[in-house]
């Protein structure tokens, strides 16, 4: 700590240069914080997947429906504990920009399949009783200002109703998730399949996909194989995967988000390495006589090396903390406006990795000038050679 004033004063010797360098590093770490939060939000779907849940879809495409008649056959397969189903509705609330997912589901079996959906008992009863009833995630209710008793009109894009293109649902429940960080994954509206099936113009008797709970997660592969085997020769062969694998492949349809994030950050940090490295080299070059004075006074080579490294560390870590801090403050209000990203933020792990990256950056850009400073010949440096 006693060397801090020395390190601090060296850092601010050229104030504008230090400010601009710090700003560059802070922006890079702001970008890191934002992009990693997005990446984590995408991966959260994989993390929250139930270990004992399987998803059964058409072998050909997720958009290809499956017959409702498969339900009882799946129930009868060894190792299956429970089955529910859902379909993609794909409606619009007022404006296309208000996108959120809506699923017609079998209320009782779906809520039983997903215990992480937390819904007050009386609202659950109301959902089970009300044919046109719907429940929504709290984040959606907050965003659109919905309250229980509201009537929510949804414009159909795939499934027109017999009464017209607009479906109307009675909001009977607002649910949350047991894990607040998983809110983004459950930002959806659920309504009764029975009402949907009766009221739609076409497609009666089909569902989007089945969700299966196995008796033992160890048996997932066997059960999945048995389900696909059962329907192999039917007109609708199936593809069954763990929920985790299903979510992973769903995310991959949008591209390899992790690779995109890492590529962008790789380019940013590569540039930063040169920029900050150049600043540090220049800073030490300008201070050769001062470093020689320190060595004259008895500062050994190692101490001078550590001083220059400390300077680099203070520069990089402070700027990184600034960038990560801004990302932490900015993300929640941004996430609240983005569908499917509720609860997105810079988590402790991302923060810790960021700080470690900053320390690594400090070492990479600080070591060459620090070694130069340590190897400095006092006599030559004082003579200006």
């Amino acid at each position, binding site marked *: 700590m006693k*060397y801090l004033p020395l390190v601090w004063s060296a850092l601010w010797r050229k104030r504008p240069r230090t400010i601009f360098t710090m700003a560059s590093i802070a922006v890079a770490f702001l970008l890191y914080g934002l992009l990693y939060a997005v990446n984590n939000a995408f991966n959260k779907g994989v993390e929250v997947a139930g270990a004992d849940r399987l998803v059964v879809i058409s072998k050909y495409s997720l958009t290809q429906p499956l017959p409702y008649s498969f339900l009882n056959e799946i129930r009868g397969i060894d190792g299956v504990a429970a089955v529910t189903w859902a379909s993609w509705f794909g409606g619009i609330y007022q404006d296309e920009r208000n996108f959120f997912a809506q699923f017609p589901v079998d209320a009782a079996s779906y809520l039983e399949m997903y215990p992480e959906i937390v819904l007050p008992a009386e609202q659950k009863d109301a959902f089970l009783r009300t044919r046109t009833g719907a429940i929504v995630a709290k984040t959606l209710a907050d965003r659109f200002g919905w309250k229980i008793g509201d009537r929510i009109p949804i414009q159909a894009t795939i499934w027109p109703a017999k009464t017209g293109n607009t479906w109307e649902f009675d909001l009977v429940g607002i649910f949350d998730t047991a894990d607040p960080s998983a809110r983004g994954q459950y930002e959806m509206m659920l309504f009764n399949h029975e009402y949907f099936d009766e009221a739609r113009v076409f497609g009666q008797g089909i569902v989007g996909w089945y969700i299966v709970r196995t008796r033992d997660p160890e048996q997932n592969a066997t059960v999945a194989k048995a389900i696909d085997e059962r329907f192999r020769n039917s007109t609708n062969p199936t593809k069954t995967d763990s929920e985790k694998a299903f979510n992973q492949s769903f995310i991959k349809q949008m591209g390899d988000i992790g690779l995109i994030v890492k590529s962008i950050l790789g380019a940013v940090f590569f540039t930063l390495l040169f920029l900050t490295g150049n600043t540090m080299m220049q800073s030490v070059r300008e201070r050769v006589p001062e470093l020689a004075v320190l060595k004259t006074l*008895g500062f050994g080579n190692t101490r001078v090396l550590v001083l220059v490294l400390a300077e680099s560390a203070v520069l990089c870590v402070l700027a990184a903390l600034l960038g990560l801090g801004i990302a932490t403050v900015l993300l929640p209000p941004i996430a609240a406006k983005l569908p499917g990203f509720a609860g997105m933020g810079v988590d402790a792990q991302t923060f810790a990795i960021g700080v470690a990256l900053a320390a690594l950056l400090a070492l990479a850009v600080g070591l060459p000038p620090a070694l130069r400073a340590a190897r400095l010949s006092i006599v030559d440096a004082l003579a200006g050679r």
Partner: protein
Amino acid sequence: MANPLVSIRDLHKTYTRGAETVDVLRGLSLDIQAGEFIALMGPSGSGKTTLLNLIGGLDRPSAGSVSVDGARIDQLGSGALAQWRATHVGFVFQFYNLLPMLSAERNVELPLLLTHLSKAERMKRVGIALQVVGLAERAKHKPSELSGGQAQRVAIARAIVADPTLLVCDEPTGDLDRRTADEVLTLLQTLNREHGKTIVMVTHDPKAAEYASHRVFLDKGQLAETAVH
């Protein structure tokens, strides 16, 4: 006669600059007693600063020995030599060589950072050193806010703050006007006479040399003459 504080025997220093080899010191021997104030004089290139650097442990001889207070500093490793400099030598340069971003007191504190003293103890010693050089009231000022004479006095405070055995001064008044130079030299003389500091000073200036107790003349890397003032 008592053992000399500084004992130099058959000292050689050779520099290689590209293909050229320059013998700066050629078998020089010299003793400096504790409490002396030596002025090293001689024409440019005579080896004064090289000798000063070797006495201060800033450089290593090509041959010969340098002993200070019984220690063979020419045989010390780089780390041990740095530690030796921190405890035994105070340096004063022609251009003060203060760190521009640090206040006067922070500059003076620098050698004490290498000790185990507490902050309070360090600041107490810094205060005393600045008082000795008459600059206690300028403690918070940066070097750019000080005159040349004041900056040099801060440099002297830095040189004495760790209470070293030896002060080595390289043209300490070379950048100062006559009056300020006299003030600085008087201060060095006081440190020598009243505080018992042994001082080795390189100078071109015969008037500056008058403040020393002994004058040593170098020519072509060898001792040419010594004189007692």
